[in-house]
């Protein structure tokens, strides 16, 4: 646990490239821990830090971590561009069918609260959200259907708007 808080913060609110874990869906946390362990989540920072951190992690301990972090109160990062919030909200709720952008809301929920293994996005940091969305188009974490496809349909401006909107959500 002390190892987790070193990067994710003592209240698990996230820090720099390490995402907030507080209030995250426990099912999602377990799946991601196991994805680090089996190397299917292969983003550069994941590889550098999380592969080692999970190398000897069993499913039981993963569930215990997940339950602990899921129960912590979450604070929004509020670090996006507030001028892009409305554009981000429109994209999140409606998608953009002309260019085959799916509405995020159908899976992540109307307030980005997540659902089972689908993560809560509301209040995660702008930089984390942005890099995740960018990295799917670069081929990382290809097993996370349907996100590689969804993220590839997004323009850089759309990624900016979505990451901004989500960073302010409680």
């Amino acid at each position: 646990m002390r190892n987790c808080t070193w990067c994710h913060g003592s209240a698990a609110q996230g820090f720099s490239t390490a995402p907030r874990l507080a209030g995250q869906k426990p099912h999602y946390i377990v799946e991601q821990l196991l994805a680090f362990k089996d190397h299917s989540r292969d983003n550069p920072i994941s590889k550098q830090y999380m592969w080692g951190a999970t190398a000897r992690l069993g499913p039981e301990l993963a569930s215990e971590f997940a339950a602990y972090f899921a129960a912590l109160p979450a604070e929004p990062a509020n670090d996006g561009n507030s001028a892009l919030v409305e554009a981000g909200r429109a994209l999140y709720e409606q998608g953009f069918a002309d260019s085959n952008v799916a509405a995020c809301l159908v899976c992540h929920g109307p307030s980005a609260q997540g659902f089972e293994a689908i993560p809560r996005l509301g209040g995660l940091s702008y930089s984390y959200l942005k890099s995740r969305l960018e990295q799917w188009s670069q081929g990382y974490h290809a097993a996370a259907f349907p996100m590689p496809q969804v993220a590839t349909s997004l323009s850089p401006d759309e990624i900016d708007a979505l990451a901004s909107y989500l960073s302010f959500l409680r």
Partner: protein
Amino acid sequence: MTGLRLPLLGGLALAALLFSTIARAEGLNAEPRKAEAPKVEAPKPEAAKAEAPKPDAPPRAEFEAKFTYCKTCHGVAGQGFRGAYPMPRLAGQQPEYLQNQLEAFIERRRVNPVMFNVAHVLRPGMLTALAEGFRDLNPKPLGGEPRELIPAGKKIFEEGVPAANVPPCASCHGADAKGAGAMPRLAGQLYDYTTRKLTNWSKERGQDPAKPDSSQIMEPITHGLTPQQVSEVAAYLGSLE
């Protein structure tokens, strides 16, 4: 279609009549895809395939991009997907039903803001091509239904609930629940999706009083089923391949 050879209840015959009237009112028969209503009585998939290619069929690459887009939410093989909302299975679905629903979303006869956004940008040729695209997909059901409810659901599907004037589902949707023409396939549909649709039928479907559609057929049936019976029949359908 063995399902339609089952003894028909009086109410069901009326529903069939109502449906063909609606089909005519919707102008379905005025399209080159003629004889839609008779297809309900004697569906022949090969007859549909024999139709001439649509003059406004979209370019292949454009179709593939849009079809992939559909499968982002409806599952990589159209088997359905569970997000914050259950996204229905479209695999093996009757093209005529899908076409009708896409048009209903566009005209807001069927209320669904997400699907309105998705559907209203589709040109008619693309809409038809997508509706036909799912017909030949045949993945296993997604599963996740409460299996203990399946036997009771099977009974409702095959026998209806005579005391509540609920006809056997099989009489329109087919003994194998694969649908025909405008009657949707139900086999393999997500349990939670079917439950929600049957529960909210009158709030989501047939929302334009000036333009009644085939959703009228199901309306009294959905009201005749108790919540428990809805769950049972939805569980059975979810388990069907």
